[in-house]
């Protein structure tokens, strides 16, 4: 389908629907959504030439001397936004190009596209379904105040936020983001919404839309929604388990009838790739100081690099698939959190999986027992390593990774490391409540 026809569709719809503003969306390197509103009159120019903006004011984009960037809207992502009252507003995701028309290497969406093209060269389409967890709090203040004390799958009256969740899902469905299911999560005030699989680029766009929608619906109800990985010290954090699969045309490349674990050679190599490179890519899938407060024992988050068919402590899980549903054979990567940059996280995960396929990595044996309970000697004997324990640790591993460097490209790789080192340094200066409470009385 020619892009011209898609653009025409957008122009006609904007006219017919009386759309007042079109928001052009793109993402900075840390995954914050950026938006430029344009009027319908500027839309045609935007399609043809892109909209100029100052790239030096976007985190991770450009230095001052090469500031001019162009946002070129992708008409395939055109969507009228529901719930805007009288004002009709639509959005499109953009690709970022430099003034000479080349794809800008600092654009996370461009990074993912490049990685998807590599998968495509090998004959694969990459599909993703995320489970997004988040908390509702009464406000954005520094002391999180929960709305309820509900638990896993709990229903009213404990689950006061059910109504917000239902509204959120309605909006998501109207925006073409089908929801598989949703429920109250384990921690108080914690919720989970599982989106149905789609291709990775659309899913990364969807995750951006999803985060905004959850936050907007909450704001409308005077509460605050957060994807912060670990807001409550004594409860589970919020993760984003990612269900990943590769398809060759109509065929699930991870599935092989009659194999002992239902997994094809490709599926096994993909998992081997994820495990092999897990510690190098964790800085990208878990990019904040706080992300590592979630990856600790006792809260159902993975800590050790292992895989299993049915073991909630494993980093990679191969979920049980209903009989006769080979298309749903997939692998679940459980470390990432929903505050990552989804374009970059999916890029490095795909690159790791493809490296496993290209280099024919051997899949280590499944670890069926609860790894957290093994002694370190037992873990060493089983060849099970630990995920990085802190952001600093993760950055050290990433810095030595050729895989992550090539998946992200030099520009993003360098900026990310520099920015995250600064974040870690700021954190190092901080004297925490833990230290004051533990040390001040006794030292």
């Amino acid at each position: 389908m020619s892009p011209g026809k898609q653009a025409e569709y957008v122009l006609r719809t904007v006219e017919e629907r009386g759309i007042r503003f079109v928001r052009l969306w793109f993402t900075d390197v840390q995954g914050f959504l950026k938006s430029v509103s344009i009027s319908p009159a500027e839309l045609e120019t935007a399609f043809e030439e892109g909209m100029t903006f100052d790239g030096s004011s976007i985190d991770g984009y450009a230095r001052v001397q090469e500031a001019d960037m162009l946002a070129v809207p992708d008409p395939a992502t055109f969507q009228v936004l529901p719930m805007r009252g009288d004002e009709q507003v639509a959005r499109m995701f953009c690709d970022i190009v430099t003034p000479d028309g080349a794809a800008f290497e600092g654009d996370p969406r461009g990074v993912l596209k490049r990685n998807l093209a590599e998968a495509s060269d090998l004959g694969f389409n990459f599909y993703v379904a995320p489970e997004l967890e988040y908390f509702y709090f009464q406000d954005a203040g520094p002391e999180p105040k929960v709305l309820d004390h509900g638990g896993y799958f709990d229903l009213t009256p404990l689950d006061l936020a059910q109504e917000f969740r239902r509204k959120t899902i309605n909006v998501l469905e109207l925006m073409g983001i089908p929801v598989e299911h949703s429920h109250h999560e384990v921690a108080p005030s914690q919720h989970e919404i599982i989106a149905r699989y789609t291709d990775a680029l659309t899913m990364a766009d969807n995750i951006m839309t999803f985060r905004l929608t959850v936050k907007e619906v909450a704001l409308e109800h005077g509460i605050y929604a957060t994807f912060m990985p670990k807001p409550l010290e004594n409860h589970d954090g919020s993760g984003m388990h990612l269900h990943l699969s590769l398809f060759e045309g109509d065929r699930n490349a991870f599935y092989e009838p009659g194999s002992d674990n239902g997994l094809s050679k490709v599926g096994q190599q993909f998992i081997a790739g994820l495990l092999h490179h897990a510690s190098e890519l964790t800085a990208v899938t878990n990019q904040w100081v706080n992300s590592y407060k979630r990856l600790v024992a006792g809260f159902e988050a993975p800590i050790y690099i292992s895989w299993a068919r049915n073991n909630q402590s494993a980093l990679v899980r191969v979920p049980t698939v209903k009989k006769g549903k080979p298309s749903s054979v997939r692998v679940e990567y459980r470390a990432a959190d929903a505050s990552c940059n989804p374009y970059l996280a999916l890029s490095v995960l795909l690159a790791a999986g493809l490296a496993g396929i290209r280099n024919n990595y051997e899949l280590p044996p499944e670890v069926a027992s609860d790894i957290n309970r093994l002694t370190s000697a037992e873990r060493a004997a089983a060849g099970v390593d630990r995920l990085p324990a802190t952001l600093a640790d993760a950055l050290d591993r990433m810095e030595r990774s050729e895989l992550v460097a090539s998946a992200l490209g030099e520009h993003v790789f360098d900026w990310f490391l520099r920015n995250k080192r600064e974040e870690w340094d700021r954190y190092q200066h901080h004297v925490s409540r833990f230290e004051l409470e533990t040390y001040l009385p006794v030292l």
Partner: protein
Amino acid sequence: MTAADLVVHPANPSRDLADAMAAAGLTFSTTDHLEHDGPLDWDLLIVELGEEPLRRLRMVERLAEQSAVPVLAVVDPSQVGLVETAVGVADFVIAPVGNVELGVRVRRLTIRTGSDEVLDFKDLRLNVLTYQATLAGQPVDLTFMEYELLRFFVEHHGRAWSREQLLSKVWGYEYYGGARTVDVHVRRLRSKLGESRASWITTVRSVGYRFG
């Protein structure tokens, strides 16, 4: 609009029919095989009852169970009575066939809607000039490909399509996204149509999808 995909059965049509088709400016292909496993993506099937009318009508009846390809029967004056109760025959012409009448009947059966501008299905309305979709008068916000898929479904409602057929007919051959794209878009369409209308698109096991 591209020329309709006309198929004539049997593969060796009578001279009379072949000449009339040519004179009416209709291009066609032929087939001897009406038993297909999957859905047929023809626009019209023309069946000459010829020497074995009962057998061919039975095949038409069986075909009607698995596809919604309209059938135009070509009958001898003596066979007209058989058509009265025949299942799956949309219209007929009497041999020897006049090319003007044949042309009119073929076009009647292959025109997709009454109006060029608006397509209706129950309370869904698609305006093909403005690309707008409404449900019970309320606008539905579709992306371009969702719109195109829905339009294709409405234009060809009542018959099953495989994912590959949908991919090539809606997305075009140059699209490499893979047949799963179809599943993804069907899911999105269902979610935008809403719960009560999601069942308009049914999944046909080991075939693909049918609308309506």
